[in-house]
């Protein structure tokens, strides 16, 4: 028996069959339950863990259909069009039930024409498969609690003497609407088969999929690689028919014992070539921190292609420039597969005067690059901006003497003392004024006596900071 907390009281969250037979019920205060039965085994409720578990089961149910949604304490699977793969609906239902039961869960299942009906049937008529179009007939004998409509409406039904769904359905819609609201009537109609309420799947549907099911779960690397190769070829065929290439390739490995592993690879340019797909997947698999563990074996392997685009090149281009670009793009893709896409970067100009934000390094696979850099330097000037910028400006110690407005004559940084020989500046750069801690900075380009050139700034104007301003070193010039 699981005890949960609500409104500062402990109540019964869930109970097993034995407890239910003894007369306990969900929502009962724990004290009462304890009084009724002496030796009660109580486990505290952990709703987060329950949710996570449900999500894992949902992941695993992906093998049946990609349209899976979490529905309160259960799952909704849209099996339109896939039931034939399992031998028809009447074979699929027991199959799914057995598979889940084999993992140790108690499960009730049902198939119906709409989500709400299936939801109701699963809870009140376990194992029922509603033939197409006969949802209303199947629902009729169920008690009104199957409508899942809330305490108030249930009480109203009881007072009115309506005990089954069939009796409610027989009432006129206008009178139901006036007493219980239009929303209820809509739900009722959907359940009886009038309209369809589509399911919101957990993951967006891929553009193309290819999967392979194994009668016996596979463990060896060769078979897995061969399977991936075959699936990649099959995806290539599908992509070719549409003249498209993929930019996101996902591989799913469904283990026989319930775990699902997912590998994803992104590319910068649309891809169709099966060998390249396989190579990218291998790079990603090799780069995994924990290698892929088949456990007792994978019984389904699936490849999904998403973010497809029209693929420009289908033949080798004679244009050198294009060739170079594609080759470099592939190089970037391989590096991104190996190291992670955030480690392979390109600079993008930003329209801001704040130095650290002026150039942003973005993953090189993102392609909408625009923006031009403005060179500050005039023809004969030396560089006005440092080649290297410290990611976090480091504070430097400045002796207290000297006019606070000017650059220091001497400063201490990283355990060494520097004497300043030449100074250029100040260049005043105001930070975002709406961020109170960010003061205006006066930047100075200083050259030390031994030839180093640094970019320093004073944090705050003289009148704000008084006699003890803070100085920072932000950049190193060539």
């Amino acid at each position, binding site marked *: 028996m699981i005890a949960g907390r609500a409104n500062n009281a402990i109540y019964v969250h869930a109970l097993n069959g034995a407890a239910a037979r003894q007369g306990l019920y969900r929502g009962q205060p724990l004290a009462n339950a304890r009084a009724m039965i002496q030796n009660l085994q109580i486990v505290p409720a952990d709703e987060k863990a329950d949710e996570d578990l449900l999500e894992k089961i949902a992941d695993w149910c992906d093998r049946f259909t990609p349209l899976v949604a979490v529905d309160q304490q259960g799952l909704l699977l849209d099996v339109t069009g896939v039931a034939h793969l399992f031998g028809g609906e009447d074979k699929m239902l027991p199959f799914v039930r057995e598979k889940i039961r084999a993992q140790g869960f108690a499960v009730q299942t049902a198939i119906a024409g709409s989500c709400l009906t299936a939801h109701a049937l699963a809870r009140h008529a376990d194992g029922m498969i509603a033939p197409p179009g006969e949802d209303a007939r199947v629902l009729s004998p169920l008690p009104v609690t199957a409508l899942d409509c809330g305490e108030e409406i249930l009480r109203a039904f009881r007072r009115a003497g309506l005990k089954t769904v069939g009796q409610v359905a027989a009432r006129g819609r206008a009178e139901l609407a006036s007493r219980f609201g239009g929303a209820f009537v809509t739900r009722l109609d959907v359940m009886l088969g009038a309209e369809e309420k589509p399911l919101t799947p957990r993951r967006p549907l891929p553009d193309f999929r290819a999967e392979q099911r194994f009668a016996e779960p596979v463990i060896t690397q060769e078979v897995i690689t061969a399977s991936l190769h075959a699936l990649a070829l099959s995806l290539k065929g599908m992509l070719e028919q549409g003249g498209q290439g993929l930019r996101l390739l996902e591989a799913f490995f469904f283990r026989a014992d319930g775990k699902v592993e997912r590998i994803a690879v992104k590319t910068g340019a649309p891809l169709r070539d099966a060998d390249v797909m396989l190579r990218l997947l291998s790079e990603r698999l090799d780069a995994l921190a924990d290698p892929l563990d088949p456990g007792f074996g994978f019984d389904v392997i699936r490849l999904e292609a998403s973010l497809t685009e029209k693929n420009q090149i289908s033949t080798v281009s004679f244009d050198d420039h294009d*060739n*170079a670009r594609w*080759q*470099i793009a592939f*190089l*970037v893709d*391989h*590096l991104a597969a*190996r*190291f992670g896409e955030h*480690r*392979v*970067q*390109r*600079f993008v*100009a930003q329209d801001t005067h704040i*130095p650290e934000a*002026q*150039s942003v*390094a973005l993953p*090189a696979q993102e392609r909408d*690059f625009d923006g031009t*850099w403005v*060179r*500050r*330097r005039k*023809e*004969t000037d*030396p*560089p*006005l*901006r*440092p*080649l*290297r*910028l*410290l*990611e976090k400006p480091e504070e430097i110690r400045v002796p207290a003497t000297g006019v606070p407005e000017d650059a220091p004559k001497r400063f201490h*940084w*990283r*355990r*060494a*003392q*520097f004497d300043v*020989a*030449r100074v*250029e500046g100040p260049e005043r750069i105001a930070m975002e004024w709406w961020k109170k801690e960010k003061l205006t900075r006066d930047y100075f*380009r200083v*050259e*030390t*006596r*031994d*030839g*180093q*050139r*640094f970019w320093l700034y004073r944090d705050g104007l003289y009148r704000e900071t008084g006699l003890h301003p803070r100085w920072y070193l932000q*950049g*190193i*010039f*060539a």
Partner: protein
Amino acid sequence: MNKHEKLADLRHFLRRYGLPHNRPAVPLGLAEADAVLDGGIKRGALHEVFAEDWGAGGFAACLAIRAMGRKPLFWIRTDYAALEYGALSATGFLELGGDPKNLLLLRAPNVEEALSAAADILACPHLGAVMLELEGHAHALDLAASRRLGLIAEESGVPLFLLREGADSRPSAATTRWQVKSLGSRAEDDDWGAPRFLAQLTRHRLGGSGEWIMEWNPQDGIFRQETAYPGAVAATSSHRPAEASFRRA
């Protein structure tokens, strides 16, 4: 053996035993240095630059800008180098004369990964240059590793610049090796002048060495011969705090 076979054999022999592919070297802009280097910086070769202080790394950047031309430059560095010596700034690169649109970056987690990535990147012949920035002693970069990189560079024709910061020089298979210090502006300038470096060529595969004061011209992207003057040269190493803090870093 007929003529064709002889020719093929000869080509194979030449390729194997050291005569490089016929690629034009990139002149640095200093007549004297270019003469010693036999034309300039060789493409398809390994060039090692040991930076002795904070600003000297820019010398390697200037070499890369010279070598890359219009083609992309791939800059590889480790996470540690980025934190310690500063992240690369696109505006700074632009100011120095490079084109940030042609800059690709890889941040490798450590030296070994950086080396293995460099091997793959160097093999792409469409790049203008590759810069590998390694901090500290980088034990993974031994003679065998540098020789392998040199072979890959020779095959693809892409020059590799190895920027070593805070490291002592060790034997490697580099074609040229430089020890660089930053010099400030010229003594007679009141304001900042162009970036200047004291670059010492300590090793050259085909012989020769020298030390030159090289001034970088950001406008034209080339080094400039410094007009000789008996002005102040950088202080001797024992009293250069910049070096002290650089090494200890």
